[in-house]
């Protein structure tokens, strides 16, 4: 009886030990990748204009939020999908002058849709929360049942500089293009205030007709473009990372500052010119010596 009790104890001990050994890397990985302990994972500041879509044309409905705070939170993880809730907070305005603003390109719309002094406050502390289900391996998102494509406000799988060219992403039905130099991602240098000084962060640009973002691992430093908010409505966003996140960005700021390459045709030409000069000088010296002799 005593023996069997000890035997059971030892089995229990080994079971606990083995589960710890096998589970620890998984838990560490999850903790590293998505930090479930901290619910807020990213914060932006920016302006947002609400739009409807009619075919390829986006039309402002006259509502906008100035200096919005956009907070990305993690909700839960289920079968390879993670819920990222996006909370947009700020004063909501309506401007009849904006209601006629329309176009198909986000950067033209951003530039031409001005509000007027007639804009009126609708809600002083407007809050809109949207929950996107995001695939943890390819970052594809759904809003309700509608497929969005690449989720632009936070990238769940870590995109390192070296593996950035391996992935192809689609956003709102169109492939995202990675800005490259000689086949490598082109580093963009962004200066941000950091403590009493400033820091230079390096990110890489993905864009298409609908969005333009500059990414450092999980974190876009800026996002311009259309964000689907459901019911054929879109938020035309102009967001930059909030200064409170710069410490996090500084800790992962390991993308290179520039792409370097060698033009081997020019190297060949250079070597040929140098060789010709050497041969020429040698010939002149020989002729000079012969002449002396």
């Amino acid at each position, binding site marked *: 009886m005593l023996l069997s009790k000890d035997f059971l104890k030892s089995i229990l001990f080994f079971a606990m030990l083995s589960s710890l050994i096998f589970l620890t890397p998984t838990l560490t990985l999850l903790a590293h990748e998505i930090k479930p302990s901290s619910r807020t994972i990213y914060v932006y500041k*920016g*302006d947002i*204009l609400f739009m409807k879509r009619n075919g390829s044309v986006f039309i402002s409905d006259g509502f*906008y939020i*100035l*200096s919005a705070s956009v907070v990305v939170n993690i909700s839960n993880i289920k079968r390879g999908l993670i819920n990222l809730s996006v909370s947009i907070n700020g*004063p909501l*305005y309506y401007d009849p002058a*904006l209601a006629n603003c329309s176009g198909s390109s986000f*950067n033209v719309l*951003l*530039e*031409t*849709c*001005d*509000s*007027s*002094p*007639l*804009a*009126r*406050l609708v809600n*002083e502390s407007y809050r809109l929360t949207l929950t996107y289900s995001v695939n943890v391996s390819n970052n594809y998102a759904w809003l309700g049942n509608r497929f969005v494509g690449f989720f632009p406000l936070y990238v769940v799988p870590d995109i390192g500089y070296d593996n950035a060219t391996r992935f192809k992403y689609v956003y709102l039905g169109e492939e995202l293009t990675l*800005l490259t*130099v*000689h086949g490598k991602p*082109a*580093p*963009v*240098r*962004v*200066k941000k*205030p950091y403590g009493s000084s*400033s820091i230079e962060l390096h990110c890489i*640009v993905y864009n298409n007709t609908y969005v333009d973002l*500059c990414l450092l691992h999980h974190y876009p*430093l*800026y996002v*311009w473009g259309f964000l689907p908010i459901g019911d054929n409505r879109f938020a035309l966003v*102009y967001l*930059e990372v909030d200064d409170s996140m710069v410490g996090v960005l500084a800790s992962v700021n390991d993308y290179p*500052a*520039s*792409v*370097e*390459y*060698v*033009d081997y045709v*020019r*190297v060949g030409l*250079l070597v040929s010119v140098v060789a010709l000069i050497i041969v020429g000088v040698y010939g002149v010296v020989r002729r000079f010596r012969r002449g002396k002799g």
Partner: protein
Amino acid sequence: MFAPETNIKKATAQNVILLDYSIGGNGYHGSSGTVSLTVSSQGALFTFSYTVNGIDAYDLAGSVLTGVYDSGIHQFIAFGKGYNYRTRSWTSFTHFESYKISYYYGTLSGVYIDRSSCNSIGYAKVEARGSELFRVEHSTWWGAKTSVHYDYISLTVSSLVSCSTLP
């Protein structure tokens, strides 16, 4: 964001008021020096000077936020914005080294007015956000070796105006 040495020289339209400006740049070769940049908004021209740490090759971008003030009714009747940029490339005398700097793209968002603080402090915020991207190519050994990167310059402009000056 990064305090520039700026000097406003002139405004050609009297009823257009400069509310805020933003200017930024990067210099790459040569001694530090002052570069001027002119930005237009609502028919007015504003000239700024900016010190770059490398006067031979640089990128520079600036934006302004303006308001058209009607002194008869003591109100702003419109707000506007504008941006401009300059680049300068450089090649050494022997062509051994060069900097080629070009504008890639950029934008300045619409002007938005935030009246939410009118009741508390009596001022409203007027704002436009913008940014510019420049391609910087540095070559040595007569173009045999090259490094490339992009510079991002943030150009957000923001100002507080008295709510009594709004319609």
